[in-house]
């Protein structure tokens, strides 16, 4: 098991795995900024097909926002319990987080299904293209997060020591970041339509 690593030659106590995840998340900021700005500049350049105003409703997205925010609470509670030495509670909260993530995805699928029936497809017009792409990449990140959380939970069931909190913490950082991106998407795509 790779060991924690106080920075040599400096006074910062920084774990290299956490640092790596933060650095990766920093680069993801630019990735989602690129997708979001593409959505912003293209989404109302439609001459035919559904517009954002027509096609998007707030019910499911709002519920999904609540779901993700709650899941972030669950995620950070999982970490807190682990730090306090309560492994079983931690695993339970991890599973809760993953379950909420799955609920998000199910509702997203329902929403997509609605849209498709109403004629909003990725190829009908550029709004469709941008909408599915932005929300789709985010959903894909959620799916990856769910898988990651489940494997961490599985790993926790087998071997545990307080040092494994970094494993939970890193997946937590990723999960909260995905929540953060959703905050932006919720605003740009749904609230500002």
């Amino acid at each position, binding site marked *: 098991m*790779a*060991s*924690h*690593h*106080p920075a*040599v030659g400096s006074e*910062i*106590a*920084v*774990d*290299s795995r*956490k*640092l790596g995840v*933060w*650095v990766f*998340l*920093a*680069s993801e*900021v*630019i990735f989602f*900024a*690129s997708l*979001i*700005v593409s959505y*912003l*500049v293209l989404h109302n350049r439609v001459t035919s097909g559904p517009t954002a105003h027509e096609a998007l409703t*707030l019910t499911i997205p*709002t519920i999904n*926002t*609540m779901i993700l*925010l*709650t899941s*972030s*609470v669950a*995620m*950070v*509670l999982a970490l*807190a319990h682990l*730090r306090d030495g309560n492994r079983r509670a931690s695993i339970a909260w991890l599973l809760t987080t993953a379950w909420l993530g799955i609920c998000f995805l199910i509702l997203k699928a329902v929403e997509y299904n609605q849209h498709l029936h109403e004629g909003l497809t990725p190829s009908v017009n550029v709004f469709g293209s941008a909408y599915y792409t932005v929300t789709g990449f985010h959903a894909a990140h959620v799916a990856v997060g769910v898988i990651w959380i489940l494997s961490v939970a599985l790993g926790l069931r087998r071997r545990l020591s*307080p*040092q494994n*909190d*970094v494993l939970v*913490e890193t997946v*937590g*950082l990723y999960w*909260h*970041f995905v*929540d*953060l991106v959703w*905050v*932006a998407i*919720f*605003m740009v795509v749904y*609230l*500002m339509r």
Partner: protein
Amino acid sequence: MGGTSVSTDRPEGTVGAKAHRHPNYVLVGIVLIVLTILEVSVISLPVPQLPFLLGFAIAKGLLILMYFMHLKFDSRLYAVLFAYPWPLALLLVGMLIWVYFGFRA
């Protein structure tokens, strides 16, 4: 990883902090939900949308960053690293908004 041998009894950020009280995560979660309700309400009000929506979104984002992602309590290095791309992202977004929306005849 390479580097000097490390004693593993010093997990990061825990010099005396192991005993620190966790922030009230549930409270933060409730605040986030309230902010979301406010966001959704604002769009049906006759007020300028952008300042409110942006404000709420930024507030939510900062709460998530500070408390859930522990930036408030952790080494400043993480915050500096994560802050680095934001001016660049703002430049990209701002410039494209300017180019695409700022010059309508």
